[in-house]
């Protein structure tokens, strides 16, 4: 990927805290490439999603081609290539949650947020107009005993019902 194809307007750089964390990370592995996933996680936390500028920066840090970084980013569902809402709501819809009526929770969330479910290639579809929420379906979150479950950013919420979803959404600060 060269600059002629994708214009990188503002270059990306780690802030000081993340740079420190990266320097600590890179020492853990005998080859730099291995730090790819943790580095991308750091970058996504800072920037919100993986922009072409992020990929270029990560490629320089790890001494790889940008294409190699892009290759990894597109493989893993947790990396976003488009902007997402402030709160990413991941709802599990695999069998154990399906047996415990996750569909009811999903329909309720869709109605409440007034949005569709995001697909991996179209995150905007599941993002609310005010950019507060992105709703996406994910595969098993390994909490089948407390199904149905959702994750809001890094936090897991268990045994959900439409009422509990309402309560939860109200608690989230703007």
């Amino acid at each position, binding site marked *: 990927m060269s600059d002629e194809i994708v214009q990188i307007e503002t270059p990306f750089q780690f802030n000081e805290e993340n740079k420190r964390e990266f320097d600590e990370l890179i020492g*853990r592995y*005998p*080859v730099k*490439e*291995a*730090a*790819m*996933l*943790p580095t*991308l*996680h750091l970058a996504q936390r800072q920037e919100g999603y993986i922009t072409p500028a992020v990929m270029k920066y990560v490629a320089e840090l*790890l001494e790889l081609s940008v294409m190699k970084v892009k*290759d*990894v980013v597109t*493989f*893993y*569902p*947790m*990396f976003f290539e488009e902007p997402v809402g402030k709160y990413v709501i*991941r709802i599990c*819809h*695999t*069998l*154990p949650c*399906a*047996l*415990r009526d996750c569909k009811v929770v999903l329909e309720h969330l869709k109605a409440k947020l007034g949005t569709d479910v995001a697909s991996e290639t179209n995150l905007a579809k599941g993002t609310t107009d005010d950019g507060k929420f992105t709703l996406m379906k*994910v*595969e*098993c*979150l*390994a*909490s*089948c*005993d*407390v*199904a149905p479950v959702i*994750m809001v950013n*890094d*936090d*897991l919420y268990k045994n959900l019902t439409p009422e509990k979803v309402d309560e939860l959404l109200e608690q989230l600060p703007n």
Partner: protein
Amino acid sequence: MVQERRILYEHLDVPNINTFDVFRQHEGYTRFEKTIAEYQPEDIAKMVMDSGLKGRGGAGFSTGLKWSFVPRDIEPRYLCCNADESEPGTFSNRYVLEKNPHLLIEGILICCYAMGIETTYVYIRGEFTLGKKMLDAAIKEAYEQGYLGENVRDTGLNINIYTHPGAGAYICGEETGLIESLEGKRGQPRNKPPFPAVEGVFMKPTVVQNVETLCNLPFIVGNGVDWYTKMGPTYADMRNDPPTPDPNTGTKLYCISGDVNEPGVYELDLGLTCSELIEVAGGLRGEEVKAVIPGGSSAPILTHYELDTRLDFTSLTLAKSMLGSGGIIVMNETRNIVDCLLNIMKFYAHESCGQCTPCRWGTPWVRDIVQRIADGEGRQTTITRPKFGITESGRWGDTGETEEVYEDLDLLENVANNIANVDTMTWNTICVFGIAVSWPAVSYLRKFRPEFEAAIREGKLVTLPVAEATVPPEENYAYQQRIIPKEFADL
């Protein structure tokens, strides 16, 4: 009624067990100290071999045997702890990581001592943010207390543990996929051989172990092999002459979910039956058991005729299913098997890594066929094919007769069997993901065929009563071929 035997989970609910001090008060790290004071590394490897511990991640491979494949003359060697718990229905590792991370560290230390390993990577699921936080904090404490770092407890070993976050791909739970992912690439599994024990992460010898397997080590060392082997059955492996012991020792963290009253993790000796486990989990929620998935969504389904199957590695393998990761999903009479299969096939179609053609194209194809049937658009044309059943010799095979089947059902079985053949146990893919797709697809279809036929015939999903939906035992391929293993002591 079967009693829970909490060993790995004994102190799980003790407040602040995640801190070093409280863990220490509950025998924490004493087993590691015993290891370095009383045993040579070879002794530990022998103890693990004698204990009969089988890997708890899914394949059920003997841990001691795996360790014996690691060449001792190549440096450095690595340990990868597989905490990428993504198999639907499995959630036992999450609780260990979130509540008792020091137990895992102690298990890792014992493994590192036995194998002379200095670097461990804990590959932890990207979604386990709390688990990673707790484990990172515990690792930090262990460094401060001198259990990690340079020259640990004067053993001369420099042991380091690093956590490595995944990023949401199911396939990274496969050991070579995990290794690729750890190296910073797409998590696409490698061809075996070479096995990771010889050429693993960074092309060095690597031991890959599940969290639960490693957590067993402190107890094997602390309480001895004799104590450990008393738990769980030891069967006779009749393939050898004379038969050799096939241990299914220890406890298992059974994760039970779905239609039971008290879903959760229950730590029980291996070898209890399916119906006993449902009793332990507060009984069935509903009137009747329709089906049970015994080992995560990849495992072939069991019908209500097969509930007497013992839930251990050997028994389930001989019943043409598998214990896998121990994620048991129970379904009651209100569930539609076609709908359940559709859910699982959507999962696999989404999670195929795209490396091998049969899987990349086969999984969406299987999903589309099931979707078509579930939508009531299953093809109603029929084809004639040879009928399999009990032959004159009393065995399962080609009966010489023919049967009429709906085109879509034959196609479904055909496509699935061409990703991986469940009868010959051969797969056309690099990793076992192929068999994880075709196992459920074929077993659901063969064991609950009336429900699939009804959906095609009626043009909509029809939930039949349990007795009508299930293929009777005399026509059930797995029931007919299953072998009930003999206990070694009874020989």
